[in-house]
């Protein structure tokens, strides 16, 4: 009887791992609890223990091999006297639901790399300084922070686990080493306090970058963000500005349930005095984060944990920036407009492909990039051309960014609309834990396709 040891999922969003080191060799006898390998994940390098007992019959990957999918067999253990047939592939039915969701993400990444849609994405395609190498969103964010910290000593970073731990999601990797503990500060789990402290530092002239481990925890500090950071310039008659960036992952990750899966895009977008940005690719993450750090106002920078591993080309010019308040026409089309942002850009692109193939609909996709101030002009102009609009976002439906867009479009382009505007949002409930319910909660490609068919009067 032999047993396969599978590449384990060591974090909610891990889709693949690198085999840093084997701690066993062929012929060794292992028992449950023995350390067998070091695996590098999207967050850290971790040791893996054996769960079953037996003799190591085969190691299926060499040390240093990278990008091994979760649930792929990496070793075989069993009774050496028994003849076994080594299966190299993990059986499909063993793939748990969580990883199906992850796979969807991977698929999206592939679409991003190969598809013809990308050839039409305005700015990125026009950019003559694109890197030949593709980097992750995580690295794009890190590089931009480092570049700005090199330029301006007033820029510093604080948050939970940003320094010695290298970032709970590895976004701040290496920054402590380069800039030292004066400028990269680990805080206690004390959001209200350290947010107020950072706001005070910004009032006094520093330029803090404050990482929320996730934006869910910003609710602990929301009084300081809104009552202090956003309003003081106004309340002081223009004397005291607050140049600060609040950044971190926003929205759902994978199966972290109600308290850790909330989307705050419309919460913060409602507040005058704040600017709100939601990047969707490494390219725009880089350009927009630089604009956020250089901006003299408080900026909410909503990242997405699932996108941290998304790879793409970037512009490596240390002065490259994308202006705040400008949307990007990700794909031009004539039949229907999809307005979206953040992670839903990927799903919208996937839906657009299918809509073209199956219904011959030519979809225009607008990636908002900035949620406040909104680039209403691009949206209105697009609707004037296509006459149909759906909004796609991860947030709850009530009073969402899509609601505001629907309001603006019916006000400014009423006569151009050939059908009601439809919104695609998450379900109007707290996020459930179970992977099956989580999938139902989140907007899926089919939801977008159905909305597109409806506004196009296709049955």
């Amino acid at each position: 009887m032999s047993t396969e040891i599978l590449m384990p999922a060591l974090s909610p969003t891990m889709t693949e791992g690198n085999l840093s080191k084997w701690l066993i060799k062929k012929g060794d006898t292992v028992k449950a609890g023995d350390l067998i390998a070091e695996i590098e994940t999207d967050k850290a390098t971790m040791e893996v223990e054996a769960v079953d007992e037996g003799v190591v019959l085969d190691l299926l990957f060499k040390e240093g091999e990278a990008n091994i999918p979760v649930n792929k067999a990496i070793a075989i253990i069993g009774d050496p006297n028994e003849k076994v047939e080594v299966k190299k592939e993990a059986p499909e039915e063993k793939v748990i639901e969580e990883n199906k969701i992850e796979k969807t993400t991977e698929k999206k990444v592939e679409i991003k790399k190969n598809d013809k849609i990308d050839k039409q994405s305005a700015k990125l395609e026009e950019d003559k300084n694109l890197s030949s190498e593709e980097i992750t969103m995580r690295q794009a964010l890190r590089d931009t922070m480092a570049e700005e910290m090199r330029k301006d000593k007033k820029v510093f970073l604080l948050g939970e686990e940003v320094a010695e731990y290298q970032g709970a999601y590895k976004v701040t990797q290496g920054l402590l080493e380069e800039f030292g503990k004066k400028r990269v500060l680990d805080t206690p789990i004390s959001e209200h306090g350290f947010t107020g402290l950072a706001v005070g530092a910004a009032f006094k002239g520093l330029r803090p970058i404050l990482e929320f481990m996730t934006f869910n925890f910003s609710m602990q500090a929301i009084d300081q963000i809104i009552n202090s950071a956003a309003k003081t310039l106004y309340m002081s008659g223009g004397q005291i500005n607050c140049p600060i960036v609040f950044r971190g992952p926003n929205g759902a990750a994978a199966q972290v349930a109600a308290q850790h899966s909330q989307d705050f895009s419309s919460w913060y977008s409602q507040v005058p005095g704040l600017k709100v940005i939601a990047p969707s690719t490494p390219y725009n993450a880089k350009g927009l984060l630089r604009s956020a750090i250089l901006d003299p106002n408080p900026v909410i920078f909503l990242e997405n944990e699932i996108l941290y591993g998304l790879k793409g080309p970037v512009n490596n010019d240390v002065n490259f920036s994308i202006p705040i308040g400008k949307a990007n026409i990700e794909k031009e089309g004539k039949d229907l407009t999809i307005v979206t942002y953040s992670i839903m850009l990927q799903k919208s692109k996937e839906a657009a492909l299918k809509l073209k193939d199956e219904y011959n609909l030519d979809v225009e996709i607008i990636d908002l990039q900035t949620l406040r101030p909104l680039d209403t002009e691009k949206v209105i102009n697009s609707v004037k051309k296509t006459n149909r609009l759906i909004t796609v976002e991860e947030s709850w439906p009530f009073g969402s960014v899509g609601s505001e867009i629907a309001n603006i479009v019916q006000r400014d382009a009423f006569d151009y609309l050939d059908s009601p505007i439809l919104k695609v949002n998450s379900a109007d409930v707290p996020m459930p834990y179970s992977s099956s319910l989580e999938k139902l909660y989140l907007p899926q490609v089919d939801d977008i396709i159905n909305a597109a068919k409806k506004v196009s009067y296709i049955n």
Partner: protein
Amino acid sequence: MKKLQKKDYIKMYSYMLKIRRFEERAAQLYGMGKIGGFCHLYIGQEAVVVGILMTIDKNDSVVTTYRDHGHMIARGLDPKRIMAELTGREDGYSAGKGGSMHMFSKQNNFYGGHGIVGAQVPIGTGIAFTHKYNGEKNICRTYIGDGAMNNGQVFEAFNLAALWKLPVLYIIENNKYGMGTSVDRAAAGLDLYKRGEAFGIPGEKVDGMNVFSVIEAADKAGKYVREGNGPYIIEVQTYRYRGHSMSDPAKYRTKEELDNYKETDPIEIVKSEILKKKIASNDEIEKINKDTVEEIKNAAEFATNSPFPKENELYTDVYL
């Protein structure tokens, strides 16, 4: 203790009197409908801010609560423009957009004027962080009402200040009531100055009706903080003669209690000291009194004649 010179006595008396007269006039304008919203008077507490003022460096920073008119006057700001802010006019320190609770003067390192109880404490701690980050020798004086001492973010700020040894002096103005709730009905453990003990922050209690006691404590504490030892807490025992705000009849306390405090009126204490030490004559005191009344009267006139903000000001100062 800091050696006080003759001019210091006169300065203290003038400032305390100016605050008192200013607040009385503000109350009058409020009654006339010239000042709206919330308006929290500082009458009775003058010795606190003026005592601290005597030990301050002009490059030190200050941040305080919504009971801030007296703090601005003590910072040397113009009573005309403070009053114009109370009347919501364009000459006000916040151009009429802040009001009584939200006034600032960046030029004078005065960082408000904060309307949310407790919120100024992490902010003051962050300003102190900046002094240290920039390698400056200055400190941030962060005022806290007794009511805020039961607010969670205050303790988060204490922890951060002690952890990072920040140059912040916390001054608790204990005026016995958080709105209408007396301290003993709100705080478990009445020695508020001991609330930094768990973080290793030293603290002491001082009589806030007597400006000389305040100076002595503030001088010592200021030196401790400026020398890089981290934060320090002074709890100043004081009393507000008026209600929490203009709309508060203060029925929760007795007339005897109020009268009792008035017997140790902080301004009278300074005045008798001046006369006793023959720093100034009765006539000279009388001249200060008259000049102060005149100055505040002018401030009120200025504030009621200053134009209301222009309509387009509604949309300015939202973003820089």
